[in-house]
């Protein structure tokens, strides 16, 4: 594996925000061994930060300490370095020491978003979920545009089964990132779990629109739904069934249910059949095809 390939992979992980720690660690060690650090120049510091976090995640604290020492020597009073030192402390010391370290930094500079986030995550880890939620809500009052924070709040509420609060947090995410189909899908599935079926079906259809909507040249019969679109069509079918079963259920958000449910159901069935009928990249048939065909064939009511 060449140095160039390793550097490209690391840059991809940085842009796409994935947490592939083992991959980053392996590529990062390769870069260090082949002396690629000088080649990166100024970019080398973000690379070292990425490698520090990945080595802490993988458990190789010796490598993490080396990288952290290099960064701390270069940037002695930086808040980012404080954050990294705090994370290193979280990995080995008891949580009270890490909390005290973060509290000290926040006293000196109470608008340090990264340190505040680490404090909230430590509180969540040791089980003080209510305190974590209160601090997170305070944090989001100050930093409204932090999408990560709203997603974390939605996740905490969902883990406590408070799906309507989770949906409220996700609506803020949707305001902040209106073009993102992943968050719309998460909101649709949360709405379904919160039993707000008309809202859920509308959101699922919006996801389909967002992910498949630009195939305007191809006819509908020719395009195959892939990825998120398939998940959204599954959601449409599930919602259609539940709406038909509970005809007099009120939607918590006062959304009206769609009028032509049978047609929507038929469309969803056809799209799912197409999605599972086309042969994949290696020419093989999708797994689970028979089960999907059997399930979509059952009638609506």
């Amino acid at each position: 594996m060449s140095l160039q390939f390793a550097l490209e992979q690391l840059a991809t992980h940085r842009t796409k925000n994935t947490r592939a720690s083992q991959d980053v660690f392996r590529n990062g060690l390769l870069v260090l061994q082949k002396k690629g650090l000088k080649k990166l120049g100024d970019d080398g510091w973000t690379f070292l930060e990425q490698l520090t976090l990945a080595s802490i995640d993988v458990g190789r604290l010796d490598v993490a300490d080396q990288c952290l020492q290099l960064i701390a020597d270069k940037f002695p009073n930086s808040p980012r370095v404080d954050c990294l030192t705090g994370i290193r402390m979280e990995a080995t010391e008891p949580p009270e020491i890490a909390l005290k370290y973060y509290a000290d930094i926040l006293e000196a500079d109470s608008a340090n978003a990264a340190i505040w986030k680490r404090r909230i995550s430590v509180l969540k880890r040791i089980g003080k979920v209510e305190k974590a939620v209160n601090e997170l809500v305070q944090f989001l009052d100050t930093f409204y545009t932090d999408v990560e924070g709203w997603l974390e709040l939605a996740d905490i509420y969902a883990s406590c089964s408070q799906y309507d609060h989770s949906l409220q947090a996700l609506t803020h995410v949707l305001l902040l990132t209106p073009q993102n189909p992943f968050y719309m899908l998460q909101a649709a599935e949360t709405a379904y779990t919160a039993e707000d079926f008309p809202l859920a079906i509308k959101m699922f259809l919006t996801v389909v629109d967002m992910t498949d909507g630009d195939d305007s040249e191809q006819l509908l019969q020719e395009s195959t739904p892939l990825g998120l679109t398939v998940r959204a069509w599954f959601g449409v079918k599930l919602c259609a069934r539940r709406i038909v079963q509970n005809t007099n259920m009120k939607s918590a958000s006062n959304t009206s249910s769609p009028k032509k449910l049978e047609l929507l159901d038929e469309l969803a069935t056809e799209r799912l059949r197409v999605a599972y009928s086309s042969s994949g990249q290696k020419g093989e048939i999708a797994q689970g095809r028979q089960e999907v065909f059997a399930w979509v064939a059952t009638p609506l009511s």
Partner: protein
Amino acid sequence: AAYSTYEHLSLLKALGKPEGSLPLDIVYESVLALILGLFGASLNSPPLNDITWASEMKKRTIDGMDSRLGFAQYKSRGKLLFANPHQGKE
């Protein structure tokens, strides 16, 4: 081309005649160098990305979008799963 321009200008200054336009062959050389440079840069550029949001979203994954790295937990089982087996207790 830039080097020959500079050399000519310094020669003119040395001869005491700094004004006057550049000699014609130097002009031709710099224009040719510009055209060649344009071709080289445009043919050598990295592959172009689509400009729509939808095409960019097709390349992302749920794990990337939902990673919330600012809140990530670093005290995980990674230490036990990935550490060097010879370093642990035997």
